[in-house]
Every structure is written in C-alpha cells, then in structure tokens.
C-alpha cells in the first residue's frame, strides 16, 4: 500500500513539477530608449548642413518624436558613449544597459553623389542584444526631416506594434489680431510644428479644416465671396472646388475613409441636415431629415456608419447611423451635451467634446455608447481629432483670456502636450501618414 502510494506520488510529480506564475500587473511607464547622434562616414557639406550636424539633428528629432508620444523616455546622451560608424552595426550593449536603456536607435547619414542623402535607421533590443529592424531612407537635403520622421515611425511601430504617426502633417486655423477683428488663416505644418506655412491669406474667414484620410486634400469652410460654404482643396495641385450648389450655408465637412465622399451639414431654416457628397461625380445625397439640428458627421473607418450630433431628442447628443442614413440610434446619455464627434481610424472609439458644468472637455466613448471616459479637464477643450494611428487626439484649448492653442493627449488620458504654433491656433486636423 505504501509502495503504491509512493509510486502514485512519483507519477503525479511531473505534472505538478512546472511552476506557473501569473504576472497580472506591470508598470505603465515609458520605455527608456537611447538615441545617440547618427554618425557619418565622411563629413560632407550639403544644402541642409554638414552630414555630421544632420546626424545629430536627426537623432534629436527622433528623440523628440518618441518622447512626445509618451510611450518612450529618451535617455540623456551624456549617459552613453556616442557610437561611431563601426558601432552602428555592432553596438556596445553593455554601455546602453548601464544607461538603463531598453532599446537603442542608431544609424548614419551619408551624402550621395547625386546630391541626395541616405539615412540609415537601426533599432536594437538592448537586453536581448538583438537587432529588431533596420531601414534606409533616401531624401533630398530639403526633405531631411522626413527621414527622421520615417525612422521614428519605424521604431514606434516595431516596439509598440501599432503604426506610427510622425511623418504626417497638421492643418489648423491660425488666429491673429484683436478679438473683435480676428484674422483666421489656414496653416499647415509637420506634426512636430516644423515647416509651418499659411495656406490662405486671411482675407476671408476660414473654419473647420479637415484632412482627407486618403490623400493631400483638404475640406474647409470659407466665407469667400460672401457665401459661407464648404470647399475642397487639393494641396498638391492647388485645385479647389466648392462643394455642392446649395442656397444655404454648408458646414462641418468630414471625408469618408477612402476620401471619395464628403459628409457635411446644410442649413435649413433653424435646422440643419446631413448630406453626403460624391467628390468625383459632384452628386449629393441627403442622409438626415432636417427636422432638427443634425451636424458634425464623421464616418467609421470601414465607411459603413456615421456618427453625428443632433438635438432631435431635446438636447445636443451623439447618434450613430448607417452610412445611408438608416437606423439612427443615440449613444450618449450622460449629463450635459455632447458634440463634434470623430470616429477613431482604429474604429474602437469615438472622440467628442463633452459640454457640462460650463466646461468643454475632450472625451472618448465606444461606438455602442459604452465606456465613456473624459480625457481632459480644462476650461474649454474642444474639436478633437485623431492621429492617423488612432492613438493620439489633437484638440484646441481656449484659455479664459481668449488665447487658443493646439494640444495633444494620448487616448489613455496621459501626456497632455502643447503643439507649438507661431500664433494662436484652433480647429486642428491631423493628416494621414505620408507615403
């Protein structure tokens, strides 16, 4: 009997041998990452500066991008030795581990014979001592910043598993002048504030610029020629056309995910109806009845649904309907009003402005109306807009003194940052990731 017991005991042993430990918590902290200046094999003068200086600037841009995402913490360069060309492909991992870096971004800058630049970009896992990804980018000297953004996107997407958003641009309304005679111009800039320029002169009021998710096309509302209406503007060709031929004001445009259609509102007496407009055929379809104020339509990323705001139930709330206008259902019920919804390109969330208790705050909610979360808590935060990867929300903040600025916040509600603009800024719209 005893023998049997022991035998059973021994048989049972291997099954129980393996210990399994559940790790159900971690630390939501940014990943420490080292981005030393990119070396160059031969210092060459280029129209954008010497390759050595560019190598340092490129690392600086990558560092700024990654740090700005809130998911990474760039380590001070003083903490590790600057790698030379030989170390680009054989990094001194020990030194970077000592500096507490978990990942290393390095690379090089080379001036090519044809006047272009090639920027090499390498990402290493410092603890596993493994190369994770590498990629080269050839650019003209004038476009050197894009190489840094592309490298940032490469690193971001490899380490997070989500697509990046650094090589993209933002359009917004630049505001100058006294409040009684405010001049509003469309301005465009890189996502990090560089390469800023104005698209309109300021002679006509412009509002609500929106980027097409598919290409370099903008839609916006302009009061040009005394007719407030929506225009579509192709940045690359300079071509522009008014949307539809409505006798009344059109406003609040937003592109469909494929960029072929535009949904917007048309004023009807004291109310407004939502229309979809096919850009190529210039034909429009009415989607909502117009018995209420229906506005701010935004397509789901699959193009099958539209979220919009309406006061049909008595107060301004969010509704989701099919893209043909059928089956509208209300999704916000909390206290206060809800407006300017925008569907995440990832599809899982809708960002909007929650108006309650005299405050405007940026919030997110699931398309089925569950899981509402307030992301910001300031006096007037409004006009949310998603980064191309659906991870970051851009919005405008108005201070009590009237000044306005662009801000961004992670969808987890962390990392509330100011986006630098040369003048007061409102109504931002994030463009797609550049090809």
């Amino acid at each position, binding site marked *: 009997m005893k023998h049997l017991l022991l035998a059973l005991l021994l048989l049972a042993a291997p099954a129980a041998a393996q210990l399994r430990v559940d*790790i159900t918590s971690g630390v939501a902290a940014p990943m420490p990452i080292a981005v030393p200046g990119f070396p160059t094999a031969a210092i060459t003068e280029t129209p954008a500066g010497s390759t050595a200086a560019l190598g340092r600037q490129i690392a600086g841009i990558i560092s700024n991008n990654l740090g700005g995402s809130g998911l990474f913490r760039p380590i001070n360069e003083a903490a590790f030795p600057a790698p030379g060309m030989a170390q680009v492909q054989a990094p001194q991992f020990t030194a970077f581990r000592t500096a507490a870096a978990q990942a290393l971004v390095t690379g090089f800058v080379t001036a090519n014979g044809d006047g272009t630049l090639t920027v*090499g970009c390498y990402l290493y896992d410092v603890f596993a001592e493994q190369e994770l990804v590498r990629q080269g980018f050839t650019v003209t000297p004038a476009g050197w910043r894009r190489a840094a953004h592309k490298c940032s996107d490469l690193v971001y997407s490899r380490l997070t598993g989500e697509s990046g958003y650094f090589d993209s641009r933002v359009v917004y309304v630049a505001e100058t002048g006294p409040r009684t005679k405010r001049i509003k111009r469309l301005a465009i800039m890189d996502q990090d504030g560089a390469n800023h320029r104005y698209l309109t002169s300021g002679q006509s009021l412009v509002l609500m610029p929106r980027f097409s998710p598919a290409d370099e096309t903008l839609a916006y509302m302009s009061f040009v020629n005394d007719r407030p209406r929506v225009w579509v503007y192709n940045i690359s060709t300079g071509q*522009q056309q008014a949307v539809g031929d409505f006798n009344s004001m059109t406003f609040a445009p937003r592109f469909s995910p494929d960029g072929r259609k535009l949904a917007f509102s048309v004023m009807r007496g004291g109310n407004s109806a939502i229309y979809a407009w096919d850009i190529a055929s210039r034909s429009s379809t009415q989607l909502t009845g117009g018995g209420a104020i229906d506005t701010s339509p935004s397509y789901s990323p699959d193009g099958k649904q539209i979220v919009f705001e309406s006061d049909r139930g008595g107060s301004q709330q969010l509704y989701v309907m099919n893209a043909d206008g059928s089956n509208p259902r209300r999704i916000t019920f909390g206290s206060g009003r809800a407006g300017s919804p925008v569907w995440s390109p990832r599809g899982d969330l809708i960002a909007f402005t929650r108006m309650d208790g005299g405050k405007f705050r940026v919030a997110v909610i699931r398309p089925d109306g569950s899981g509402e979360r307030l992301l910001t808590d300031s006096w007037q935060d409004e006009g949310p807009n998603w980064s191309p990867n659906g991870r970051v929300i851009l919005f405008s903040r108005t201070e009590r003194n009237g000044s306005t600025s662009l801000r961004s916040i992670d969808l987890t509600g962390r990392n509330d940052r100011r986006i630098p603009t040369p003048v007061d800024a409102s109504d931002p719209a994030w463009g797609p990731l550049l090809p």
Partner: protein
Amino acid sequence: MTEGQALLLATGGHLLLLAVLSFGLIKSLPPTPHQPDITPIDYVEIGPEPTVTEAPKPSMDAAPREPEPPAPAPEPVLQPAPPEPVPDISPQDVVIEEPEPQPKPKPKPEPKKPAEAKAPLKKEPLKKPETFNAGQMAALIDKNLPDAPARPRDVSAFAKSIESALPKGARISPRQIATLEQAIRSQIAPCWNPPMGGADVAEMTVVLQISLNRDGSIAAPPKFVSQTGATAGNQAYARAFVETAKRAVLRCAPLSLPADLYAHWREFELNFDPRLMT
C-alpha cells in the same frame, strides 16, 4: 427652441454677420473665382518620397544579422542533475503528510547553499525595483511552517531510500509554492511595461518558459510557450507584446530566490496577463 438650436442659430448668425462685415473687404479684391485666397503651394516642398533603399550604404550584408544571445553559463555545470521524475511532490501529497505529529519543534531549514561560482551573463543588474532577499524568504517560509515538517518522519526503509534519492528541498508545501510564486511575481512585475492602450490589449496574454541558473541568472533566453488574443490582424502588436514580457525577464535577472528550492524554480512558466491593468 432648444439650447442646441439656439447655439447653432447664434453661431450661424455670428458667422453671417462676420461674412457681411467682411463683404466690403472681399469686394475690393480682384475676383478669383476658383482659387480665391489660397497662396500657391508646391507639394514638392514636403520632399520627395523617401526611397526605400535595399540596404543603407556601409556593407550591410557583411554585418551579422543579429548577434547571438548572450552566452549563458552552461547549464550542466551548474546543475547537479537530479533524476527527472523524482524532484517534485504535488501539493495534494504534501497535504496528506502535514497532519503527522511533529516530534521536534521545527525542522532545521536546509542550510543555504553557497551561491554557485558566479560566471553569469555579462550584464550588471540594474537596480532591482523590489527589495527581496533569499534569506528573508527562507525565514518567511520557516515561520509559515512552524508545525509542518518539510519531510515525513515516516521511516520505512523504502521511503528512506526514496528520500535519499530526492534532492534536498525537493519537497515543497503549498505555502512554500505560494511564497515562491509571490517572490517571483514581486521581482518580475516591476520590470514589466505592458503596452498600454493598444486596441487588442484587453484580450492578450503570453506564457513564457523561464530557465534560471542557480544564482538566479538567465540560463536560456525566455522561451515562447503560448499566447492568447493574437489574431491575423494584430501580428505586429502580438509580437511587441511578447517582447515586452521577454524584456521584463531579461531586465530583472538575476532573480533572487531561495537556493534550497532551486529544483522548483530552475524552470518555470510565467503567464503575463495585463487584463486587470486596463
């Protein structure tokens, strides 16, 4: 009229007023029907699309694709190699033994084995986030078991022979297991930065197989065992998720665990599950 309608009317009114006020200004401008007031823009300003070169210049192909993982101290040297099926006793078995009367006040804890000659990875452990030491651990286990003998006092010749074949510390009580688990958890969790905010994080977990040397250093790179929540659509995210788990283990090594229970933590599995965090 609702508040929203009023707001929209007011907004519309203001916009129209602004338009009317701007009218004079606009009229004085030369009419440019199609490109009213857009400054010319050259799309080229963005810069041409970066050419994705096959491989950046300096002798990429000559470079080793990736360095070998850091050479671990060879396992056989450190490992007294206990006979495979013997070392472990399932908790249920121990429960049977526990009620046995206890002749001596308490069993002498196994003398802690001196740490094996350290020839570990060429890495210096970063400051460990949690304070943990094996001595305290042993004391803790000891305290937990004032009456439970670590080994049965039953002394049939057969049992004795089995017992002598068991490596020291092979027997382990549920409490010891729980304490050991807690020791591992408390050292790994502070090193883990799960990727937060990902669209699929709510469903994702990963199990890794961990092999440790007697000094707590990594004997072999953490091995992927299984994963939940990975789909065809989230491969990149699933991979990044697994890497955060592996990185947590590598970052935290060497672990500080009771040497006398080495047979139980020489190899174990870690199940990384951030669902409670989101």
